[in-house]
């Protein structure tokens, strides 16, 4: 463990405003703490709004229920995209960035005023987007707002406000890191979790700049200042924002996987170099992913599409596959070191399945990788994309990544932020034990329902597919699976919001004394033991089980991949 800075005052001759966290024995700047709380609360608020919209639109697409009329369906679909894919994710990530650049580094927040300005702009932008979408029918343009669908200027302005606010908050992250380093708050390298957040912050910077390149011209065009903006170019820039934005989520989520694994079973990354290299691969290659949305667009060559869609050579995919081994392997080593060495998977049987952080992490990893990751690579294969573009397989894929993956991980981490940062005792612990399973199980059904519907040609963003007149009965079935999954997931979401609000509003003020929440007492797995070099290197602790798991993953990946080429080979000839 690296040495922490001595407890010198943070600013010379100034009154310090901090407390010492009894669990991590780190200093917590009260400015940072308030910023983390504000961002996390806003995240949960927009999650609740977006979740309500989710329930209503899912019950509409479930053909047997078909709840809303077309106008409300498309309106709430627009709202759902903005609140979930942008607002919930970014607010939570900002909480993560403030946490990773101050608390984890034992450092102060160096630019709280700027960070508050960013927060306020994001809040105003986010709420404004909700209001203008609900009040003005013109703004039912879906969250992508493809030109030349013309929304009102206020719609684009709300995007710009939100994005500039987020950019300011991201800049304070970099300032914090530099100041912490200069003031010697930590020595040596950044902790892995902060390193991952650093990756997320760098990705966020150019993501937001590309967003500006799409939305600012659209804003000027809606004011009739700019006469024309090419719809193809808009798509390119919009996805330069939209796709890497999901990779910001990815980097943040993986950082949180490492954090949760450390909190719940005390892992140490098996090899820091391996894990960090994987983050660096994201940094270099993941921005090419904009092309994933343009694979069947006119005007682009095969070479351009193939190079970009494959992230130069699937090097960002390589990064994910490295984490896919590194994290389970670290878990296995930690659990084996604690004595669970029986067979290949004895460590898994004895893992703390009742600890919500652990359950959330495992669910997040499994659904993200096995469903989200595999379908994503297949969709991003240039020719195969012709079978998939804008069908329900698309939302099936990204609900497995951003919701089952990222959102589940964010939810899992929140349970630990409540005692650590909000300093409240977590209430409804039994609910918390079940919540990841209900939410994750529901999301899995939802994603599979969407993917199977999409395989049969059902298009996304469509109020009523029966107009097409080509609806076989099997689609009714897969849409029903999707609908049931959505109800389960919404129940899981309501449980999460209830747990958080009950804890924050009614829980007693409590200085946390330990990290574990639910099943920690007297359980040797969870008693935090420090892993020694010997534990890490010992032969009987090597991650053989995790290795078998990733081999199985690779086999599934290959099967799904080749099945899609086979499906493509059966369709009409086209070139």
């Amino acid at each position: 463990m690296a040495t922490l800075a001595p407890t010198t005052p943070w600013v010379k001759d100034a009154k310090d405003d901090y407390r010492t966290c009894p669990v991590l024995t780190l200093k917590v700047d009260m400015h940072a703490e308030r910023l983390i709380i504000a961002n996390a609360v806003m995240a949960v608020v927009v999650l609740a709004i977006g979740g309500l919209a989710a329930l209503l639109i899912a019950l509409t697409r479930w053909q047997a229920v078909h709840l809303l009329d077309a106008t409300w369906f498309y309106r709430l679909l627009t709202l759902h995209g903005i609140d979930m894919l942008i607002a919930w994710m970014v607010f939570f990530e900002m909480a993560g960035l403030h946490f990773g650049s101050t608390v984890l580094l034992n450092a102060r927040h160096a630019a709280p005023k700027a960070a508050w300005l960013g927060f306020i702009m994001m809040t105003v932008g986010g709420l404004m987007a909700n209001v203008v979408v609900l009040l003005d029918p013109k703004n039912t343009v879906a969250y992508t707002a493809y030109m030349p669908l013309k929304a009102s200027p206020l719609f684009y302005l709300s995007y710009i406000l939100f994005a500039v606010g987020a950019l300011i908050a991201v800049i304070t992250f970099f300032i914090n890191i530099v100041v912490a380093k200069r003031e010697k708050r930590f020595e040596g390298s950044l902790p892995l979790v902060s390193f991952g957040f650093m990756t997320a912050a760098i990705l966020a910077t150019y993501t937001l700049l590309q967003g500006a390149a799409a939305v600012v011209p659209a804003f000027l065009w809606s004011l009739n200042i700019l006469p024309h903006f090419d719809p193809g170019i808009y798509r390119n820039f919009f996805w330069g924002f939209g796709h890497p934005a999901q990779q910001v989520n990815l980097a943040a989520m993986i950082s949180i996987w490492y954090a949760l694994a450390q909190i719940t079973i005390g892992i140490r990354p098996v090899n820091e170099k391996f894990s960090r290299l994987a983050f660096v691969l994201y940094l270099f290659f993941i921005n090419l992913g904009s092309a994933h949305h343009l694979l069947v667009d006119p005007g682009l060559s095969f070479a351009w599409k193939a190079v970009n869609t494959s992230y130069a050579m699937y090097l960002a995919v390589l990064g994910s596959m490295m984490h896919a081994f590194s994290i389970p392997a670290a878990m296995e080593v930690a659990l084996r070191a604690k004595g669970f060495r029986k067979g290949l998977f004895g460590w898994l049987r004895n893992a703390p399945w009742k600890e919500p952080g652990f359950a959330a992490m495992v669910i997040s990893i499994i659904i993200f990788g096995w469903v989200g990751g595999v379908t994503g690579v297949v969709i991003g294969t240039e020719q195969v994309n012709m079978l998939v573009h804008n069908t329900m397989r698309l939302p099936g894929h990204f609900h497995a990544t951003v919701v089952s993956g990222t959102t589940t991980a964010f939810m899992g981490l929140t349970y630990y932020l409540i005692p650590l940062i909000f300093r409240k005792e977590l209430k409804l612990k039994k609910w918390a034990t079940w919540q990841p399973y209900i939410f994750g199980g529901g999301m899995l059904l939802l994603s599979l329902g969407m993917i199977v519907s999409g395989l049969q040609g059902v298009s996304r963003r469509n109020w009523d597919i029966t107009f097409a007149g080509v609806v076989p009965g099997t689609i009714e079935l897969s849409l029903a699976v999707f609908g049931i999954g959505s109800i389960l997931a919404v129940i899981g979401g309501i449980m999460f919001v209830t747990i958080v609000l009950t804890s924050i509003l009614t829980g007693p003020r409590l200085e946390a004394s330990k990290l574990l929440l639910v099943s920690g007492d007297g359980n040797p797995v969870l008693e935090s033991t420090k892993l020694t070099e010997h534990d890490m290197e010992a032969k009987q602790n090597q991650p053989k089980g995790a290795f078998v798991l990733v081999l199985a993953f690779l086999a599934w990946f290959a099967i799904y991949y080749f099945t899609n080429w086979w499906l493509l080979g059966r369709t009409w000839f086209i070139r």
Partner: protein
Amino acid sequence: MLAPEQNWWRPMGRLEKTWLTLALVWCIFLTIMMPLWYYMGKQNVPTETYRTTAQQFGATVNEFVTKYQVGEETINGITLPVVAPPPGSDAYIRASAWQWYPILQLEKGKEYRLHLSSMDYNHGFSLQPVNINLQVLPGYDYVATITPTSSGDFTIVCNEYCFVGHHTMVGKIIVK
């Protein structure tokens, strides 16, 4: 979560190295697969594109319909011309909110140059149930050289959101 020791640049273990090699080989294979199919496969994403305008493309479509119309058919209460271009020739479909115009009648096993463009918004050409999906943009004349390999009635669904009547935008291709 806490900073590692100063020296964390350690060699990777045996299992890590093996997995990294396997994953890298798989990634290289995924990369090769696309150019391989490009040269050997029968289903590739069309790339042929021309600049156009709504007026220009609309005029060409009207000319095309006048020249090769063979009948009329009604979809969702709207009567559309059925047009049968000769095999090997250019065929046109115009996308606009919320209609695919006209209905095409093609022959199985024959090749056609299918031009797609939009008069207004983004639209999505989604041919069902063969499940071929292409993006249609205003200002771009996108040429897909297609050969139907099955016969029957095929539905064109719009799968790019084009405002609130989007789901009613349904067209047809007949293959004899």
